[in-house]
Structure formats: structure tokens, C-alpha cells
């Protein structure tokens, strides 16, 4: 459990209310959650909150955040987060994004680097590397759920969640997250065709961290992604799948700390 106070706030951006959690104190770190929001209860976030103020927005349609119809993808969400950085008057922000959050972080950094000091993408989606029939990103929506779990986790047992023990509010969030993930990422599947052409605009130091055994987006995808971002570094966390921060938190934190301090 958290030893840091979790300050739940809501921030109105252009008429859309997002829930934003603020934890710890220090330099600002914008933590962009993965599509399942599993980071919220992970110990590594409390660890980060000892030296950073960790700012954790829920994307539109995720958690308790609103989802107006005009928001159709990560590109729109990235603009909202630029608005958030501006509204909260954040400077020298370290941006760390996981999975879908990594995609949004990359979009954000292509639009404006001004307030960002460092960028970390963890097993992120967002670009299409190969041709029309190449499977860059496993199709999680046409694959048997058992296969998806095996691709996502080095140890699938770690990904099991007992929904029967959750409250209706928690289940509503799970269902909203599943729905909004599909709303934004169904087609084009998990990528923005324009992002690849924009990644050279990222001028801040960038680290990509990848789980060695990620079967959703494999390390070769991560390496190709990194080559599109000038000067970026690529690091692998051994023995972990799509969520290295959850499956191998110590190795993950060592890598992360080595980059963000």
C-alpha cells in the first residue's frame, strides 16, 4: 500500500473533466498509464513519489474521466495532456508512458518539447513498422484470451485478476477502460500512420524500455520504434513481458533511475 498520500483531483481541460492523481513531491513526473491502469497500485510508483511529484491523469474514457465523442484517438489525448501541462504550469517534466500511455507520450513529445525534459516509453504502441500483412502488434482482439495473457506476461499467473472480488465501481472502471481502449485503438490498429513521420520532432533525451518477453509488441518492434527517435536509447528488462515495471520492478527501476535520476 501507498505510504504517500494520493491526491485525487479533477482538472477541466477545454470543457472535458479528467481525473488526475498527484502523489509525492519533487520534480514533476507525468506518468501515463497503460490501458489497464495496473500501474496505479504498483509499488514502483510510490518509489518514484519519494523523489518526484508523480502526476497521473486518467485518459478520456478511462478511470472516471469523461469521454466526449470528438476524442477519437491518442493524437487527441496528447493535445489534452499538453493542455494539462500548461494548466498545471509544469516545467521540466519527465514523461513516462506505459503501453497505450507510451503511445500517447510519443504523440505528445512530437507536438511540443518545450516543457519536457526527458521521455521514457515502456513497451509502447503507436507506429506501424512492416507492410500490410506484417503483424507488428499482436491482434489482441482476434486472439484467444489465453493466448493474449501468455503474450502479455512472462508469467501469465501474474496477470490474473479476480473480478468477483471487485466492487461495482472498480468493475465499471475495468469495463470503461476496455471499451475506451477499443474506441481509440481499433482502427488503424494500435498505431497512428502519421506518428512514424513525426517522431524525428522529438528533441528531448528519450529512453525506450522493453520487456524481453513481450509478445504483444516484441523487442524487435521496440528497437525499430527507437530508431525513429533521434538519439534515443533502448534497454531490455530480462524475464519480463509487456509490463516490465510490474513483472521485474527492481530491474525496471534500476534502468529507469539510471536515465531519469
Amino acid at each position, binding site marked *: 500500500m501507498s505510504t504517500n498520500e494520493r491526491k485525487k483531483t479533477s482538472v477541466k481541460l477545454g470543457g472535458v473533466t479528467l481525473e488526475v492523481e498527484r502523489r509525492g513531491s519533487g520534480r514533476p513526473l507525468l506518468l501515463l498509464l497503460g490501458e489497464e491502469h495496473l500501474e496505479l497500485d504498483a509499488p514502483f510508483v510510490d518509489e518514484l513519489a519519494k523523489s518526484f511529484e508523480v502526476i497521473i491523469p486518467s485518459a478520456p474514457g478511462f478511470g472516471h474521466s469523461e469521454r466526449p*465523442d470528438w476524442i477519437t484517438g491518442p493524437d487527441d489525448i496528447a493535445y489534452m495532456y499538453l493542455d494539462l501541462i500548461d494548466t498545471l504550469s509544469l516545467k521540466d517534466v519527465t514523461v513516462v508512458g506505459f503501453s497505450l500511455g507510451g503511445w500517447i507520450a510519443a504523440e505528445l513529445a512530437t507536438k511540443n518539447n518545450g516543457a519536457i525534459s526527458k521521455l521514457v516509453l515502456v513497451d509502447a504502441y503507436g507506429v506501424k513498422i512492416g507492410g500490410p500483412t506484417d503483424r507488428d502488434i499482436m491482434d489482441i*482482439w*482476434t*486472439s*484467444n*484470451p489465453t493466448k493474449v495473457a501468455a503474450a502479455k506476461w512472462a508469467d501469465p499467473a501474474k496477470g490474473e485478476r479476480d*473480478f*468477483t472480488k*471487485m466492487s*461495482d465501481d472498480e*468493475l*465499471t472502471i*475495468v*469495463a*470503461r477502460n*476496455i*471499451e*475506451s*481502449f*477499443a*474506441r481509440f485503438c*481499433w*482502427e488503424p490498429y494500435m498505431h497512428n500512420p502519421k506518428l512514424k513521420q513525426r517522431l524525428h520532432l522529438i528533441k528531448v533525451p528519450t529512453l525506450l524500455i522493453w520487456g524481453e518477453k513481450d509478445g504483444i509488441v516484441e523487442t524487435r518492434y521496440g528497437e525499430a520504434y527507437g530508431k525513429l527517435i533521434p538519439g534515443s536509447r533502448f534497454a531490455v528488462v530480462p524475464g519480463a513481458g509487456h509490463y516490465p515495471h510490474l513483472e521485474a520492478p527492481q530491474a525496471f527501476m534500476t534502468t529507469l533511475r539510471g536515465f531519469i535520476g
Partner: protein
Amino acid sequence: MEAWHFTEMPYPNLPPIDSLSTMRVSLSNKHFDPKIGADLYNRYLDEYMIADDVGLNLLCNEHHQTATCIDVAAPLTAAILARQTSKGRICILGNPIANRGDPLRIAEEMAMIDCISRGRLDVGFVRGVPYEIFAANTNPTTTVERLWEGIDLVVKAWAPTDEPFNFEGRFTQRRAINLWPRPYQTPHPGIWITGSSDLENIKRAAGRGFVFATFLQPHEKVKWMFDGYRSAYRDTGLPGGGGTAYMPLVYTADTEAEAEKGAQELTWYLNAKAEPQYRNPPGYVPVEFNVNALKGTFTGRTDAMRKKSMEFLKEEGVMVYGTPDSVAKQIKRLYDLVGGFDHLLMMQQAGWLDHKRTASSMKLFAKEVYPQIRDLARTKPLETRAAAE
């Protein structure tokens, strides 16, 4: 009451069902033999022509990437029937307008079929079952909005215009819209829509005078839906047309034993299976339903019924089978249980039910059952005030 013949045009010639993980979406198309397919298409069309001959109306639909239904373009079937039949009404139930993504093309096709058939067409619109999301690659979270935006555009495009108009909606943007041909019927063919648990959808259909149709549901739930429809008549007024339609599996034979055997074949449809990832695409049903799904208390309709006995399904009104008098009695009972309905949509063919038995059941129904139910009163609003006004 109007009676309709229906087959999904199944392709039953598969390896044993127990050996397959799915019959939908991902069943390898190597199992499709075009020569068998050719025979099946022609046979099913022949059966529609027999239905027309004996005085039944003709209902068709479409699905994609599935052995349960090789009719992949209902407008093609309807076009063939428009030309080759002469009496029965033809209803497409329906056009998957969200999945096809081009409402104007549908509007054109329907207008053309309505002209060829000289006004015998009814035009249904469906959101499409969950499996269809994958073959069409429609965003599963927006199909309801796409459906209604599409219907509105079709209806507008069917009307006479003085000059072309532009449409800039959420899902469709088109310019210089000016439909040639216009439909044969004025102001346009009857519109049908399907639904199950979404009461708002049902009321919306009633408010616009659309026929509301539902399939293979227990009679209590059918009554709940039809009551919702009838009360919306009262709430929103009666714009004309409209009505209710229900589809059970139907088999009529000279003896109870034969009827039971025929009906048994029809249950093939209920046993059609699909892999879990295709059954409930993300965001296809509302968040509240998915909360129940996570708890394990919401399962699909077909899944729930598959395990039930034929006797149970007969009791629920999901299956209707027996001798002509027994079938007529069952339909009247169902009619009373659900508060009346206007269209009996009969899935009279499914799975391995062969041509001979299908034709025999259809003919017997038309000759000995239909006269007994034809004069059942049409749907009325729950409160007649609106209709009277």
C-alpha cells in the same frame, strides 16, 4: 398476421462440429466447397420461390465469414427474388448499415429492388451481431450511432429533392446527394429494425413507425420488448406503419413424431459456436452489461439456450413444431403471451434440414396453419389515444 419464410442459408457440410473450435469468423474457408455452395445457393432460392408460390412472404439476411450463413449480400438475394417471384413481400432484415459504412449505396440498392419488385420490398436495418464486427472491422463502440445516422441519411436520400444536398455527419460525409432511382413505394418502403435489450432503441423505432423485430427469445422477454414498443406508440404518437415481428424456429409435419425430427434438425442453428474473443467485442454492449459479464452473470442468448431441451424451447416460444393444428395453437398461445404481434418470421430451414422436408413443412404451414392465424388482430398501442388522434 403476416407469415414469412426464412433461412440463413447455412453451409452445414462441415467436419463434426465437436472437432471445430468455431463455425464463425475464423473457421478456415478451405472447408467451403464451391460446388456444394452452388447447389446450396440454388436450393435455398428455389425454396424461397416455393414459399412465394404457396403464399408466404420472403425474409432474407446476411452474415459474413461464417458457415451459419453463406448469404453475404442480402440485397443480391432480394434482387433475385424481386425478379423471380411475383406475390410475396420481400424483406431484408437487415442491411448492416454500420458495418457496410456506405448508407447511400444501400439507399440506391433498396430503391432499385423496390422498383424491380414493383413495391414489394421492406427494408430492415440491423446493427449486426457481435461476430460481424470483425469481418467488417467496424469500431465496436460506435455501431449504434452509426446505425441511426445511416438510417436518417437513407430516409432523407429516398425523398424527392429539388436540388442535391450535402451531408456532413459524424460518420458519413458526402456531397451532391441526389438519388436515382427513388423507391417505388411512397414515401418509401416500410422500415424494420431489430433489437433485444436496448429499450431506448425499441422506443426510437416505435417513434418513427418502424417495425420492431426480435428473434429466438423467451416469451416473457418478447413481451417486455413489445410492451416497450407499444407504450412508445402511446408516448410518442403513431407516425404510421410500424408493428412487431417475432422469429421462432418453425417446423410443421403431418405427425408429431415427424415434426419433432424436423425441429431437431433446426436446432443446428442454436449449436453454432464461436471462439470466446468473438462473442463480445470490447464496447459492443454498454458498460453496465460488461460489469455483469465480468461478474459472470451476463452470457449470450445463444449460449444460454443451447443447453436447453426442445421441450423447454417450445414452452418458451423459441421453437414451434408439431402437426398443423398444434402449430396454430402454439402460435396463438405465443400471440397471447406477448400481447400480440404482426409478423411471424419463421426460420423453417437450418442446418441439415433437406429440401424435401423444408418444402413439405412450408407447404403444410401455408395450407393448414396460415388460414388459422391470418386474422389475428394487428398490434395496437397500449393506449389507443394516440392512434385515434
